């Protein structure tokens, strides 16, 4: 680690799992694998893996440089302790969102099962309020599209 990070740690999150196979995608919201974020990152924390931006939270300093670089605006800074994340940016409705195997279709299952009222579907996309989230991952486990993941890799693989 180049600079000592301050707790609570923050890191960039690229909200796309890249399941569509990058550039051939019909998804107009997801990562294109353009690599602008990778280039912008001074800490070598982002790599384009399998055509999709992937953040190494250990290396990421949460500086936010990549956020502005992303042409699709799918990168945001979040608290690493909020390990349950929506890894999709698709705002299309229902069937139109069925462009990749892990797209959010805005079905609202997450919202219904969340005990903390931390998940809301906004513009057909699930959004987790990390200040409210209790980290249980019920939304991730129940998501029929596997669009919500456990960054730790325990509840979702």
């Amino acid at each position, binding site marked *: 680690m180049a600079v000592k990070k301050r*707790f*609570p740690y923050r890191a960039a999150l690229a909200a796309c799992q890249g399941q569509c196979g990058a550039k051939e995608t019909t998804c107009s919201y997801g990562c294109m694998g353009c690599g602008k974020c990778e280039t912008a990152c001074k800490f070598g924390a982002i790599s384009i893996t399998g055509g999709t931006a992937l953040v190494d939270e250990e290396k990421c300093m949460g500086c936010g440089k990549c956020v502005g670089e992303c042409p699709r605006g799918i990168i945001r800074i979040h608290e690493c*302790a909020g390990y349950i994340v929506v890894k999709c940016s698709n705002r299309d409705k229902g069937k139109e969102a069925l462009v990749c195997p892990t797209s959010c279709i805005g079905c609202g299952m997450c919202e219904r*099962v*969340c*005990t*903390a*009222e*931390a998940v*809301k579907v906004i513009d057909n996309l699930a959004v987790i309020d990390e200040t*409210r989230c*209790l*980290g*249980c*991952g*019920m939304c991730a*486990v129940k998501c029929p599209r596997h669009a919500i993941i456990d960054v*730790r890799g*325990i*509840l979702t693989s």
Partner: protein
Amino acid sequence: MGIYTLKVNGREVSTKKKQSLLRFLRDELRLTSVKDGCSQGACGACTVIIDGETVKACVPTTDRLEGKEILTVEGLSEWERKVFTYAYGEAGAVQCGFCIPGMVLCTKALLDKNTEPSEEEIRYALRNNYCRCTGYVKIIAAVKLAARIMREGVIPERSCDDWKIGSRVHRLDVEEKVLGYGKYPDDFYLEGMCYGSALRSKYPRARVLSVDTKEAKALPGVIAVLTAEDIPGENKIGHLKHDQYTMIPVGGLTHYLGDAVALVAAEDLETLEKAKKLIKVEYEVLLAIHSIEEAKASGAPKVFDEEESNVLAHKHVSRGNAGEAISKSAHVLTEHFETPWTEHAFLEPECAVAYRDEDGDIRIISTDQSTYCTFHECGMLLGTDKIKVENALVGGGFGGKEDMTVQHHAALLAWHTNRPVKVRLTRAESLLIHPKRHPFVMDVTVGCDENGKIMGVKAKVESDTGAFASLGGPVLERACTHAAGPYAYENFEIEGTAYYTNNPPAGAFRGFGVTQTCFATEMLLNMMADKVGITPWEIRYRNAIRPGGVLPNGQIVDDSTGLVETLEAVKEEYDKALAAGKPVGIGSAMKNAGVGVGIPDWGRVKLIVKEDKKLHIYSGASCIGQGLGTVLVQMVVTNTDLSRDDIVYERSNTWIAPDSGTTSGSRQTLVTGEACRRACEKLMEAKADGKTLEDLKGQEFYGEYLAKTDPLGANVPNPVSHVAYGYATQMCILDKKTGKVEKLVAAHDVGKAVNPLSCEGQIEGGVVMSMGYALQESYPIDENCKPTEKYGALRLLRAHEIPEIEPIVIDKPGLKAACGAIGIGEITSIPTAPAIADAYYRLDGERRYSLPIFGTPYEREG
């Protein structure tokens, strides 16, 4: 169907069933340290470690855990068990214990990765787990201590081990709660046990026209389906007033969504739910009463067929002439205040296991605040006294486990099926069913002279008591009597009314009505201080009740009265904060210990020397997490020549232990404590000629104590309303930059702290509970009188959200009972809200008249 194989505590195990990990661990592997607190992913009581990370076991299902390594506290190493038991005991982190195994695993997962965690890292490691008892302060301390011990590799000696009153000994129930082998009712899996549950009303107010149970009864796996006709005794039970229906009969009216219409017993939980869906109930849906306003409107529909109106109780308390005194006052203020519903949110949902024992009696293993209440109410229902009730561990109560919620249903099902039956509420049911804190609307007038001396107080208050009486009458009464505050003045008049509605019932909740009226009077006192031109501290100091003084209820207070000492204890920091320009708010309160107002209030203790040559303490007094067992053992060690190892504390039951009243009214330390002290006297008389416990084998020593008081309005010049009062001053300091609470100081006069460590834990827990009450907690009820079903939506404070809390325990002798110890349970939650609200006024100049207060960073939109 596949077979799912996983590794649990180092052992390979498999199951054919796709089920939640929680159900698998508890029901199949019987790893009952993994507690079922909500099954919603909220509470964290079921936390386990999977591949090094904490996970709430109610979330993942067995089919997705193939090959994963799972750890519960049963799988901790011997060293870890010792470290965590010591650290949690030394820090005083254990109260009801229901959250503790989860907290312990959070501790382990953190320390495995980070041997020197900062305070903030510890708070984050605990923040997805709720604790309702401790306010997290001592759990955080326990993690810090555990980290140090892990690093150093040596477990130190206990800092206190003499078990005398005043000693900060480790509570006696630490180990069973840390290691998770202590049993709550849900941890009992009896041979041949089946499961029971109630079908509840679909509408808050409707007439039941018919109940058809045929299809449900025919479902394989269903053992019994009962309706009101199957009740052998009284259908209507209750603490004082018997207006709580066990089941609504055909032709009867439902009172809220929690009313049971039928009861089912089945072999397993899945069949149980299926059977409930097969019961056909026809209703005539009627207009429901949602609020006090609707309840008191002329021509309002009645909540109860058998009542004349929707008024449950009306109280009028008057002394002196408040109207005249106010009219002659230099300064007069009148304001309207409102306080909300509050959910107890104890970590352990209601559960009871009932069965017919070898004597043919119905035995009930219960989590409640009085085994004898359960005994009497279930006896009424079954029309027999052939009932035995015993407490298992109780996972928190706070007033919410005083009424029958599951005990009577379990008893009735066991009676009919002759099988052991477990009835356990889901968290959604728990949120609906047990009585809540009453919402109040209050109009209060205070008159003061030019020096801020209170001349008179006049008030009118109303409460929504919901669907049945519970303790709505006494709560209203206590709200009225204590609205006067801990001040010396003569003219006081208050009128209070409690209304039935079709909302969930309201009843006892830590503070018992005083939390509500204290908010109103303390807020007015703060405003009055500004009017007079003195500080809120000064106005309290000038009016404070002092030993020998007369309270507005006419009682002459004794030498243990320590309000002034609590004010003085915060003075330096108060002045410092003021001088530094920090927003600081203050609130004071008094709270009775003991039921008082002329009601017979008995403490009873039986000390039995058993074959093991140990003295066993039996008392029909429930420990709901506050630490009564430790208090009684310290009482015995102090008042006899025995040592800790000679003494065994037995949990409350109704066949050996004598009735020592409900755990309510902050009464057990004082009332049962004094009974225990008296029993010790008898033991010491028997030991006078040098006899040892061995010589006394088989003997019993009985002590009882009547906390004698005068009824309200007794025709004596100075009635003794309560045998003792605790006093407190709490102070809130805000951080100007963030607008958040920087520090809460809570100074409490407790007479004599039996165990200062436990006492601090009560204070911290009470303060955090009421910080939530003041700033953010929520218990929304919709237009169908339906409250939230989600535990996580209650907005209880989490470990990373609490400010610095400084408990100050003040001993002041003078009470001639229980070695001077006054109960601390409730008062910890009373002055917090007005102190916080006043601090925010000092920050932004906005007065707040309702809770939770607006305009703070704790407020949540949407």
